[in-house]
C-alpha cells in the first residue's frame, strides 16, 4: 500500500477573517492513517481539505494520490472532484433535503445497491430513520448520515471537516468510536479537521498542526502536543471550564472527553498562561510525596 501515499505541495492565497494568508503546505500522508488537521480557525484547514477534494483550486503546486496526479499547476492538470474517488463530509453535512436518508446513501453509491445501503445504515444505527428526510433528523443523526454517505462510495480518501463539532459529549464519544471502527475496518486514509484536542488524541494516528497557513508541526499526537516531555503515568486531555482564584490555592476545573471533571491546583504563575476554554493536558509528573505517620 506504499504507493497510495498522498504527496501535497501547494500554495494558495486565502482570505480569512484576519486578512490574507498564504496557505503553503508540503507534506506526505501515508496511506491508511487517520490524520488530524489541528489548528485555530482561519488557519487554512478547511481550505486544505477543499484543495484535496478538488473543490478549491490552489494557486500553484502539485498533488499526487496513489501515483496519480490530481493537480499540477506546471502541467495544467486539475482532476475534477468527480474523478478523485474521495468521500467528503461537510461541516454543514450537506445532506440533500429532497431525499430520504436511504436515498441520500443510494445517491452516493456508484452502483445502486439497497442491501449495501441498509448494511451501512445499520452500522450507523440509522435503520429506523431510513425513510426520513434530513429536515426531520437531529444534529447527531444528520452527522451520522453524512458520515455514512461519505463512505457509501467506498472512497480511497475520506475527508472530514469537523465531523463531530455539533453533537453532545456522549454522542461525540460514540461517533468517535464509529470513525475509529470505520478506519480500522476499511483501511481508508482519513483526513479530519478538528479543533478538539481530546478528539485528536482519541482518534488520530498522526497530527498536522497548521497555524497561519503553514505546518507548524506534524507527527504522532503525543510528540506534537507535548512541548514539555511528559514523563508521568497519567495524561488526560481536556478543556478548562472554570478558574477559581482564591486563597490559599487557585483551582482550575477541567472537563475531559468522557466528561470527567478534574480539579487541579495551580499557582498564580500557571494561571497567567491559562484561560477559560483552553485545551490543556492534565498529567502527573511524579507521584506526589505523601506524609503518613510512622508508628
Amino acid at each position, binding site marked *: 500500500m506504499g504507493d497510495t501515499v498522498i504527496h501535497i505541495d501547494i500554495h494558495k492565497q486565502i482570505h480569512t477573517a484576519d486578512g490574507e494568508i498564504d496557505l503553503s503546505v508540503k507534506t506526505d500522508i501515508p496511506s491508511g492513517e487517520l490524520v488530524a488537521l489541528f489548528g485555530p480557525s482561519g488557519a487554512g484547514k478547511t481550505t486544505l481539505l477543499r484543495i484535496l477534494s478538488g*473543490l478549491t483550486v490552489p494557486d500553484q503546486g502539485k498533488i499526487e494520490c496513489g501515483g496519480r496526479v490530481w493537480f499540477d499547476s506546471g502541467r495544467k492538470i486539475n482532476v475534477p*472532484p*468527480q474523478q478523485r474517488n474521495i468521500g467528503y463530509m*461537510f461541516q*454543514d453535512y450537506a*445532506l*440533500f433535503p*429532497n431525499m430520504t436518508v436511504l436515498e441520500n446513501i443510494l445517491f452516493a453509491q456508484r452502483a445502486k445497491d439497497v442491501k449495501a445501503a441498509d448494511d451501512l445504515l445499520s452500522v450507523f444505527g440509522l435503520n429506523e430513520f431510513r425513510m426520513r428526510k434530513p429536515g426531520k433528523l437531529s*444534529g447527531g443523526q444528520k452527522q451520522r448520515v453524512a458520515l455514512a454517505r461519505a463512505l457509501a*462510495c467506498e472512497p480511497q480518501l475520506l475527508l472530514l471537516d469537523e465531523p463531530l463539532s455539533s453533537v453532545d459529549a456522549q454522542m461525540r464519544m460514540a461517533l468517535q468510536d464509529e470513525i475509529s471502527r470505520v478506519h480500522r475496518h476499511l483501511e481508508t486514509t482519513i483526513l479530519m479537521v478538528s479543533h478538539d484536542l481530546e478528539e485528536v488524541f482519541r482518534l488520530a494516528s498522526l497530527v498536522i498542526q497548521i497555524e497561519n497557513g503553514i505546518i507548524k508541526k506534524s507527527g504522532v499526537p503525543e510528540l506534537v502536543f507535548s512541548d514539555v516531555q511528559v514523563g508521568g503515568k497519567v495524561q488526560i486531555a481536556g478543556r478548562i471550564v472554570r478558574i477559581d482564584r482564591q486563597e490559599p490555592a487557585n483551582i482550575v476545573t477541567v472537563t475531559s472527553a468522557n466528561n470527567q471533571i478534574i480539579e487541579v491546583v495551580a499557582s498564580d504563575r500557571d494561571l497567567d498562561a491559562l484561560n477559560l476554554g483552553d485545551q490543556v493536558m492534565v498529567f502527573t509528573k511524579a507521584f506526589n510525596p505523601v506524609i503518613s505517620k510512622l508508628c
Partner: protein
Amino acid sequence: MLPPTEENNHNMDIQFIETLILTFKLAFCTTAILILLGLPVAYWLTYSRTKIKPVIEALVSMPMVLPPSVIGYYMLTVYSPQNWFGACLSDVFDVRLAFTFNGVLIASVIFSLPFMVQPLHNGFRSLPASLREASFTLGKSKITTFFKVLLPNIRSSVITAIALTFAHTIGEFGVVLMVGGNMPGETRVASIAIYDEVQALNFDAANRYALILFIVSLILLTTIYSVNKTNEPWEIR
C-alpha cells in the same frame, strides 16, 4: 357598436372564446419557452464567476424597468424588413414577425424573462454551495447534480417563476399592442380586447374579459403564496 341580434351575439361569443384561447396560448408558449431558457440562465448567473455577470444580470432585468413601449419599439425595429435581421428573415426564411403571433411570442419571451429568471436565481442562491459540492465529490456530473439535487430543492421557486411568468404574460398590454397590433385571432389578446371594447363603449364584453383575467391572476398568485407557505424552508441544520 353592433345591434344585439342573435347572430351578432353568436359572433361575439366566438370572438370572445378566440381571444381567450389566444391569450392563454401566448401565456402558455411564453412560459414553456422561458422555463427552458430561464433555468440555464439562472444557473449560469448563480454559479458563473465571470466579470461580465453584472452586465448580463442588468440586461435580464431591463424589461422590469423599461416601459413596454420601449421594448415594443425595439422589437418592431428589429422585425422590420428594412433592418438586416428582418430582411434576412423575410428573404431567406420567408418569415414575417411584425404583427404576427410568433412576433408577439418572441417579444413576450423577452419581456417576461426577468419574471422567470429572478425567482429561479433566488432559488439557486438560497441553496448552500455545499449541496452542489457534495454531489460533485460523490462523483456526480453537473447535469445529474442539476436535475437530482438542485432542481428538486428549489421546487417552490420553480412554481413561483412559472406562475409569475404566466400571470405576467396574461397581463401584458404594451408590448403586444406595439408588436402585434390588434388583429383578431392572431394578436388580439384579452388585455387589448378590454381596451378595444371600452373604446367601443361595449362595457359588457370588457367586463367579461376583465373578470376572467382578474380571477385567473388571483388563482395564480394564491397558488404562489400557498406554495411558499407550505414548503418549509428546506434548512439542513
